């Protein structure tokens, strides 16, 4: 009985210590002043691995989601005679909700798991320890560029998702279903507000980017240095990121759109 209580106590305290370590990693990697020349090159390299390589899956997913939204939206709206509003439906769903959330989920699955596996392997093969030994701070050299690459790439990927999705919806509605293109675009432009919808979507994407990259890097640094440990950390990254994204999405939506 006491063993059980002791176990709960031990788990809670070690979880708390974990949060603390995560916060220290984040603040140190953000606050540590970067050396201008070398850190920019590292950032560009990480932007490539984190952002550019995710571009294909994000763009293709955006296209298909936009096309499905256009198709389903048309099918429902044509019964009410309001099929010209399909542009408004596609654009608002994408810009407000789907672009930030789906991009973040895909990003967590693709870039987040890659980050965790990479850092976990570096830890397992003692590369991080050797860097510390030669006097290079691994947080500054390894973690910080990946963190900033994630923060910068997420909003960009989310906006690309939204635009490709809207054009996918336009393709399906205008070309294949016969919605008049003038009313498609003008009803959409009349109802999508730049500050309330587009900027709020970008803010959501930035928040999700911070969450996913932070979780991925923390899980990588904390992973048990065996092959099984790395696979567990990678799975944890994807699962925790997804849950955090969806929970944060609800909170942000309630804050941004709750009162209208």
């Amino acid at each position, binding site marked *: 009985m006491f063993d059980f209580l002791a176990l709960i106590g031990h788990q809670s305290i070690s979880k708390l210590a974990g949060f603390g370590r995560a916060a220290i990693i984040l603040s140190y990697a953000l606050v540590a002043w970067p050396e201008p020349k070398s850190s920019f*090159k590292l950032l*560009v*390299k990480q*932007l*490539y691995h984190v*952002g*550019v390589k995710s*571009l294909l899956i994000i763009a293709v997913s955006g296209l298909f989601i936009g096309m499905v939204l256009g198709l389903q939206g048309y099918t429902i709206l044509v019964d009410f005679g*309001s099929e010209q509003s399909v542009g408004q439906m596609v*654009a608002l769903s994408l*810009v407000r909700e789907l672009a930030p959330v789906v991009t973040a989920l895909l990003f967590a699955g693709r870039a987040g798991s890659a980050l965790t596996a990479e850092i976990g392997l570096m830890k397992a093969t003692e590369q991080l320890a050797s860097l510390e030994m030669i006097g290079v701070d691994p947080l500054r050299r390894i973690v910080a560029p990946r963190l900033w690459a994630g923060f910068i*790439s997420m*909003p*960009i*990927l989310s*906006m*690309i998702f*939204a*635009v*490709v999705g*809207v054009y996918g919806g336009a393709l399906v509605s205008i070309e294949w279903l016969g919605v008049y293109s003038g009313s498609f*675009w*003008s009803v*959409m*432009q*009349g109802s*999508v*507000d*730049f500050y309330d*919808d*587009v900027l709020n979507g*970008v803010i959501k994407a930035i928040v999700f980017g911070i969450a996913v990259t932070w979780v991925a890097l923390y899980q990588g640094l904390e992973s048990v240095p065996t092959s099984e440990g790395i696979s567990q950390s990678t799975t944890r990254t994807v699962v925790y990121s997804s849950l955090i994204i969806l929970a944060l999405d609800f909170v942000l939506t309630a804050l941004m759109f709750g009162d209208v």
Partner: protein
Amino acid sequence: MRSRTIEVLVGLFLVAGIVAALGLAVSVSGYSGGKGDTYKIYAHFDNIGGLTKKAEVTLAGVQIGTVTDIGIDADYLVAKVEMEIFSEVDYLSIDSSVQILTSGLLGGKYIGLSVGAEDEVLVDGSLVEDSQSALVLEELIGKFLFDKVSE
């Protein structure tokens, strides 16, 4: 991968992001770079009947401003609607009238303004004297029944 290729690809990625941002601003939301200067006018209504903030204020169907605030006037106990009109529209005479109209069958409410004949124009802070409230369905039915009964 050569570092030059990587740099070029990252540059293209950032450019794609900027293009997406501009695309979202211009073609999806129709943002036209700020609305410029405006001045405020007010109107009293007995019943605003579903008018919301950000509704259009139109003159002959063309938008000349937006509704920015809806509240109660404590002195007269009627609804007080605050509207922001674009500064270029400076020819609204002081005896203009406002009316709450419905856009389409299911559409939202908006405010239509008709210009009067006076020389003096509305300026910042003016009150539009002549106002007509929204058509409320229950009042219409009540009026119809009353007319029927009195026949």
